[in-house]
């Protein structure tokens, strides 16, 4: 009689200090501690990391690609957010 399946966890690894944690993949584990240990074995067998985060996948809220238009398109016509939008005389260096 199988009871419950181990939940799914997402694994984030910082490969060295100075860099951010990056998503590496996922795995199944009964609890957070086991998820960390499994992540060590599955994703960092060759010194790929100095720090691991695990979070149960069900706690992640993801944006829906179908809404990419309303989410991301408004940024496309805001060229004034970029330095190249502004005209400067040629004499001005280093700005």
């Amino acid at each position, binding site marked *: 009689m199988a009871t419950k399946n*181990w939940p*799914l966890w997402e694994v984030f690894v910082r490969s060295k200090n100075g860099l951010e944690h990056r998503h590496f*993949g996922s*795995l199944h584990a*009964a*609890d957070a501690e086991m998820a960390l240990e499994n992540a060590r074995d*599955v994703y960092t067998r060759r010194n790929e990391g100095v720090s691991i985060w695990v979070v149960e996948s069900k706690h992640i809220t993801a944006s*829906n690609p179908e809404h990419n238009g309303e989410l991301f398109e408004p940024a496309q016509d805001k060229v004034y957010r970029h330095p190249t939008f502004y005209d400067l005389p040629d004499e001005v260096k280093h700005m």
Partner: protein
Amino acid sequence: MSEEQIKNLEAQFEERIARDEKIEPKDWMPEKYRQTHIRQMSQHAHSEIVGMLPEGNWITRAPSLRRKVALLAKVQDEAGHGLYLYSATETLGVSRDELYEQLHSGKAKYSSIFNYPTVTWADMGAIGWLVDGAAIINQVPLCSTSFGPYARAMVRVCKEESFHQRQGYEIMIKLANGTPEQKAMAQDALNRWWWPSLMMLGPTDAESIHTEQSMKWKLKRKSNDELRQQFIDQTVPQADLIGLTIPDPDLKWNEERQSYDFGDINWDEFWQVVKGHGPCNKERMKARVGAWERGEWVRDAAMAYAEKQQERREKQAV
């Protein structure tokens, strides 16, 4: 959605792939794309997992500590490869349990090569050299396949594979330069693994059904026959270098093609093994299913423990 709308979405989807854009799990995709990927990726994962069995057989009998740590690390890598691939497959909305069930019930296939027995230590050399060698040739093009999670898993896998092949070839070098008995053992392993390794690259192009669609989706970038030729051309000089003979009397360098001509492959044997009549199909499934069933109480106990800890934390928080 109307049929017209779906047609439209499909056309846009194909264009994205043609532009070398990646497809991510939550993107819209044709049902056939999803199903084909679930099938291919899970078969790939199953192969990594079942692939541990023939080599696991020799870990306790490795002839030295150096060989033992290498083999142990390799087999552990294969477990890792299986896990990367299962989790990448799960992003398509299939559960790990369903995937295991497909493997254990025999509904899903795994690579036919793992249904051959490993009878001597030299088989560890031949497998690393030939089987991992052929796997690399299959996998490198998949690093740029269209489905993001599959491509990323393959990049990790390919980085790890090259040590697998080298440790195998090193075993062969040592045996080939050893006593006459050791050299004979290496030659015997090559004799037994050569043809199954060629078959492992898949049926001939004429017999291969999914190729065109797979090429479009970048699940395949070269045909089976091209990959096989690449494998032969790269491996023959490696055999020559250590004084072993490829067991193919028709093998001959073709000056014009700048490639080796080779003899006929026994495809009957290949299809027999695929259909479940290879020397070890039953044994492999029995070992795999047995390990899963014997592990059940451990999985249940871990879950019960986790729940108990959780309850305790919640009580303390009140």
